[in-house]
């Protein structure tokens, strides 16, 4: 048995009461068992894409789209106002996600209206490389992301400016 002392509030009644620890410990044990069973140790989330390209009901013009191609040597970007694709080479063994983020951020700030992102990759590359790019898009608040089929293998071109 445990006693809990409460400060007296001026009345004559005593505020002390006994707390029966046996049911209290039983309750805590049940809580621990229940929470252990229902605990989620790995937090899952989702990255959204859409296979529709919708420029909006009022806009008659072609939607602004950045096409990102993931190749074995890095990223190749076809920007909306450009005619030649630019490249972001690999930084050693890693893909340069920092530079890709800079380029996409500058595009997001310069392009008026919604910016669409199309991502494609060489067939043999692992899925995680696409998720890295989708993650960058999600971090910039770009919601119109679609995955697609590679039309032509990356050709190589001038390095992207990065704004």
């Amino acid at each position, binding site marked *: 048995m445990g006693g809990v002392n409460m400060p007296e509030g001026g009345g004559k009644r005593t505020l002390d009461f006994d707390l029966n620890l046996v049911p209290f*410990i039983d309750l*805590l044990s049940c809580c621990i068992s229940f929470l252990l069973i229902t605990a*989620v140790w790995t937090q899952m989330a989702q990255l959204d894409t859409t296979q529709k390209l919708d420029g909006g009901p009022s806009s008659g013009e072609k939607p602004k789209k950045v096409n990102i191609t993931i190749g074995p040597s890095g990223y190749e970007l076809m920007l909306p106002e450009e005619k030649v694709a630019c490249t972001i080479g690999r930084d050693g063994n890693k893909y340069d996600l920092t530079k890709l983020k800079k380029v996409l951020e500058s595009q997001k700030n310069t392009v008026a209206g919604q910016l669409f992102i199309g991502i494609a990759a060489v*067939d*043999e590359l692992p*899925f995680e490389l696409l998720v890295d790019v989708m*993650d960058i898009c999600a971090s910039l608040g770009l919601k119109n992301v679609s995955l697609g089929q590679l039309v032509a293998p990356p050709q190589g071109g001038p390095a992207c400016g990065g704004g």
Partner: protein
Amino acid sequence: MTVKTPGRRAGSGSALRQVKRNMAAKASRSLSASLNLTSMVDFMSVIVIFLLMNFSASGDFTYNQSDIVPPDSAYGAELVRVPVIAISATEIIFEQTRVESSRAVLAETEEYTLPRLVEALKKEQEAFKDIRKDQVFDGKILIQADEGVPYKLIRRVFLAAAKAGYPNISYIVRLKGTGAP
């Protein structure tokens, strides 16, 4: 020869006197130990708070398979319950049912459009429309793929899903900093 009561004894040599004393002390020791309840209740409360922080009421509808490790992401949105296609290096599973072999799909030509998966997706769509007549079908589907699966397999699955009327495809990821490395 004197008669001695049976039991444990350490012998009669003078070198064993200390051992005899220790044995006698142990025999008289009580078997019950006192437990400090304040510390125990504190300890249990801390465990309850820790587990409450890990509690999730939304349930777990993703596949817990050792051969499907979702890629890491830092900006994923909260999961919404929609049908799940799981893709591992060996098989493609739709709602707990194996529909295709991954190796066979990879070996097939581009004309192969995963007919069993398309059929299963169309059945799911019909079931949704039959059961939830008051709701608009939004064509949402989740793909839970292993991080090492080649893009070719993912591409063929999402194209099949889009063909079956599911254009809004989300990919299950593991939030960075949680789970096993």
